[in-house]
């Protein structure tokens, strides 16, 4: 969440990085190759289109005129320091927060008017959300399979448990799982309905490097097999670099850079996305270090 006092440094950063979105004219303002013009207008491939999305909480702007799109089968990462507006953006897309202004279209429909139809075709997983502890893993998954209207629910559950290498946990109480196992069960839940759009909030946060790597490969596999589009937040830069086709960098509620991980690294003249992240978080350093960006 952004305080207005930070607006000055924010504006400097935004100028330096050529903003995408705010006050964007009808023709796309795209001074740099990494600032995608496709974000401005939905195409037939577009699955999620966010237009001039703004959220203000008690005079504090959390998300500021955000514009971006995600195409079918694309994995897009949202990066930004704490308070950059990532989670608020995800929650608005899920319909948990009503935007102050702007529009969110998912599958060509507005979430405010068609919430149930849209939610049936998407899913989400968040590191902060759990399943009832005293139910078996299979019971929890069965309940959500039914809520999402999944046909042949038991078969689908077995398929996913095998895919995520947790078939042996099928009849274990959810409360007895380690955090890594729980993350994978949550991911199972998120894949139950073969979502066309998957929102992932720190999906590898509790996983060891080996399992995190497996999960990334599974997500890639799911993307390639089913053409699932994903919006992915993580503080793990390796996650983002490995899995995301495109990255949206947010700072103080605004989208300040967009491109492939490689493009962004090159743009900021850094060696890694992590360095970019640190420099964007410390906005002044971006201006000094990457002033020509």
């Amino acid at each position, binding site marked *: 969440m952004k305080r207005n006092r930070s607006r000055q440094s924010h504006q400097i950063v935004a100028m330096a990085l050529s903003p995408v979105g705010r006050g964007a004219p009808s023709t796309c303002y795209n001074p740099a190759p990494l600032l995608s013009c496709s974000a401005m207008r939905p195409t037939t491939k577009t699955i999620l289109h966010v237009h001039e999305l703004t959220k203000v*909480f008690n005079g504090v702007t959390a998300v500021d005129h955000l514009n971006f799109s995600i195409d079918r089968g694309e994995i897009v990462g949202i990066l930004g320091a704490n308070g950059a507006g990532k*989670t608020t953006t995800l*929650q608005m897309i899920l319909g*948990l927060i009503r935007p102050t202004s702007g529009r969110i279209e998912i599958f060509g429909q507005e979430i405010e008017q068609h*919430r149930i139809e849209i939610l049936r075709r998407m899913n989400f997983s968040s590191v*902060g959300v*759990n399943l009832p502890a005293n139910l078996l893993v299979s019971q929890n998954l069965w*309940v959500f399979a*039914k*809520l999402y209207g999944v046909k042949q629910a038991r078969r689908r559950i077995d398929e996913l448990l095998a895919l995520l290498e947790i078939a042996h946990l099928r009849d274990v109480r959810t409360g007895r799982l380690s955090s890594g196992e729980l993350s994978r069960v949550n991911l199972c839940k998120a894949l139950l309905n073969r979502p066309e759009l998957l929102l992932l909030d720190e999906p590898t946060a509790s996983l060891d490097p080996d399992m995190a790597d497996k999960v990334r490969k599974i997500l890639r596999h799911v993307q390639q097999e089913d053409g699932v589009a994903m919006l992915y937040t993580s503080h793990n830069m390796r996650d983002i670099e490995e899995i995301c086709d495109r990255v949206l960098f947010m700072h103080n509620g605004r989208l300040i850079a967009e491109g492939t991980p490689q493009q962004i690294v090159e743009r900021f003249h850094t060696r890694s996305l992590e360095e970019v992240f640190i420099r964007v978080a410390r906005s002044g350093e971006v201006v000094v270090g990457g002033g020509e960006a």
Partner: protein
Amino acid sequence: MNLQRIGVLVLRYVFIYRRSFIRLIEILFWPTMALLVWGFVASFIQRAGEGDLPRFISFLIGAMIFWDILFRAQQGISLSFLEDVWARNLLNIFCAPVRLSEYVLATFLFGLMRVGLTLAFLTILAWVLYHFNLFSLGFALIPFIANLLALGCTVGIVTIAIVLRYGHGAEPFAWALPFLLQPFSAVFYPVSVLPEAMQVVSWALPSTYVFEGMREVIRSGAIPWENLGWAVGLNLIYLVVAVWLLMHTFAVARNRGLLGKWGMQ
């Protein structure tokens, strides 16, 4: 509304309770303790009065059982909601294709199941221990119970609205709110013993008409239709207001970003 989704949500609560011995015991433990205490207190008072209060046990035990119906109906809704809060599962539900109305209806239906279990147990226990036959109330039993369930549902919905709006700190309301109504509802005594100012509040509650009506049935055997009419009318008004309050609170929670606080940070 989608019946399959409602059914699945109800079944989920059944799974949760079936797998938890403590929760199952809780459904029966407190009502049983209350019945024992009130039943023996009534027996003692009746004995001390040397037969001057022949219906005292019936009044108190009937009142205790009826109060428990209201309380359990409210708890059915509010505790089912809190189960999801405590499990950090609320966002999974709100982000699934589930309407708020379907969710609330499922919690109410599960509450009905809890009430049914408790009521059956208490009815048997009251007969065995005190020879109190709940069915002696006859046909009036049905509208009495229906009105108490409706008020329990209303208070349960208000509880959800309060917790949604004020967060974890407001959870004690799940237990406190019904007891706010108890002194005004004339559960264990007639309205006439209350101070006049309290009587005004008392007659504004549907539960008061049920408890007064119950005593009338035990005393004279006549069904007080006027009381029942008031109870139904007031229940309808309060239920509509409670549903509006919940929808309004949900909208406020969405505007202020309060829903996300139940899981995503």
